[in-house]
């Protein structure tokens, strides 16, 4: 049984990894066709994978309701929201889900008037916290933080029209910060992170890194 649980996944990862890595160096048409077929398969599997997120979300809220955790009542609203949206989605404006998607249905109305305002607003709340943190906590508590805050202030002023009104040099300095020190640091970070990505990929292909398979035997 261990063969099916442990060895086969590692063989699959090894074969697929090696095949796709070498595919890059082979310009022949058959190699292009391989890439085309395999990526299409991957797209379909990724589609299925999105249901896993849905399952964990519903499962967790269901458990909260079942175990009557404090504040479990709010979890009911997750099911109400999802239920109504899915029902109208399946109704598809009277054409039902096995036909093509219709435009301007109740499903779209819910998206426009519930999901869009809620999603857009929840992150705009951070604007307020940003300002309060600026007042109460962003401190030049050491040399590093001082450099950071000075650069931040110049960029903040230099990137809006009012910066030019204060001094014509502010946008120039802001532009220099962005395209010289910022560029250099970001490039080094990018190179470092990419080396990490490549190293992790190599470890996955050779079966050294197995965290993605989950725990257990």
């Amino acid at each position: 049984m261990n063969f099916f649980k442990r060895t086969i996944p590692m063989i699959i990862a090894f074969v697929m990894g090696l095949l796709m890595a070498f595919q890059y160096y082979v310009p022949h048409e058959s190699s292009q066709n391989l890439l085309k077929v395999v990526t299409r398969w991957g797209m379909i599997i990724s589609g299925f994978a999105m249901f896993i997120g849905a399952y964990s979300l519903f499962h967790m809220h269901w458990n909260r309701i079942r175990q009557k955790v404090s504040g479990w009542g709010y979890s009911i609203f997750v099911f109400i929201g999802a239920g109504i949206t899915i029902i109208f989605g399946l109704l598809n404006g009277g054409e039902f889900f096995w036909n093509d998607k219709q435009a301007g249905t109740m499903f779209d109305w819910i998206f426009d008037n519930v999901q869009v305002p809620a999603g857009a607003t929840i992150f705009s709340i951070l604007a307020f916290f940003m300002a309060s943190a600026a007042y109460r906590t962003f401190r030049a508590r050491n040399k590093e933080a001082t450099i950071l805050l000075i650069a931040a202030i110049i960029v903040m002023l230099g990137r809006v029209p009012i910066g030019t009104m204060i001094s014509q040099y502010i946008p120039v300095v802001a532009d220099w910060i962005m395209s010289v020190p910022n560029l250099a640091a970001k490039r080094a970070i990018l190179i470092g992170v990419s080396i990490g990505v490549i190293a992790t990929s190599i470890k996955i292909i050779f079966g050294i890194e197995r965290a993605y398979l989950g725990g257990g035997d």
Partner: protein
Amino acid sequence: MEKLLKIDRRIIFIFVALAVTIPLLFRFKMSVPPTRHVISMYDKIDSLSKDSHVLISFDYDPSSKEELQPMARALLHHCFKKDIKVIGMTLYPAGTGLADKAITEIGDEYGKRSGIDYVFLGFKAGSSLVILNMGEDIYTAFQKDFYGKKTAGMKALKGVSSLRDIDYAVNLTAGGIYEAWIVYGREKYNFDLGVGCTAVMGPEMYPFIQAKQLMGFLGGLKGAAEYETLVGHKDRAAAGMAPQSVVHVLVVCFILFGNFIYFTTGRKK
């Protein structure tokens, strides 16, 4: 003095709300001179001939809508004004509603029709895999468009078989997907790519611009406002520049004031 630092944060919240609302109500005029990265995107699209193909990937969801939707609208105005064929798509499931709305609304303004002058391909899962698949063949990645119409033989896609045939691609991104577009799209299939991103991602773009991996970039609402100015279609982004300026000044004052008190009252340990 130290008491000043311990005021209720809700008082600060009121300051922020006022700093945003008052400039919106009194409509201060602020000129938004376009910067070079925005101009290079504008010039690229402006240089395209009639019936060229521009691909716009709407990779964001409602949480970044206020920054990226104005960008999308300004770009669409430019493309439709120049009779360029627009291919829309998204790699975020919640991006479909926003993208569809933007394309249809602005398409209607210019009398453009779906399937002939533009096409909205919809959503596919797998980000980098979708880009690779489109690079090999756009019709296997998207066999149907968002409304279930067959893509093969569609007039809006005439002459396009893969990403290699796209004249210009713009990735409107709220997260790390721009990297997939550069690594698996632009570098592998050699097309010109521009990025419009939330301001949070803005500083990350500079290494790519200098290495000429990106042609043009719009950063946040400011980028959108500059593009609106260039297209000559000033809308919400341009109107947002006055409150943006005021609120930036407010935040800078907060930081300076907070630090001033912090240093004058002696740093607490």
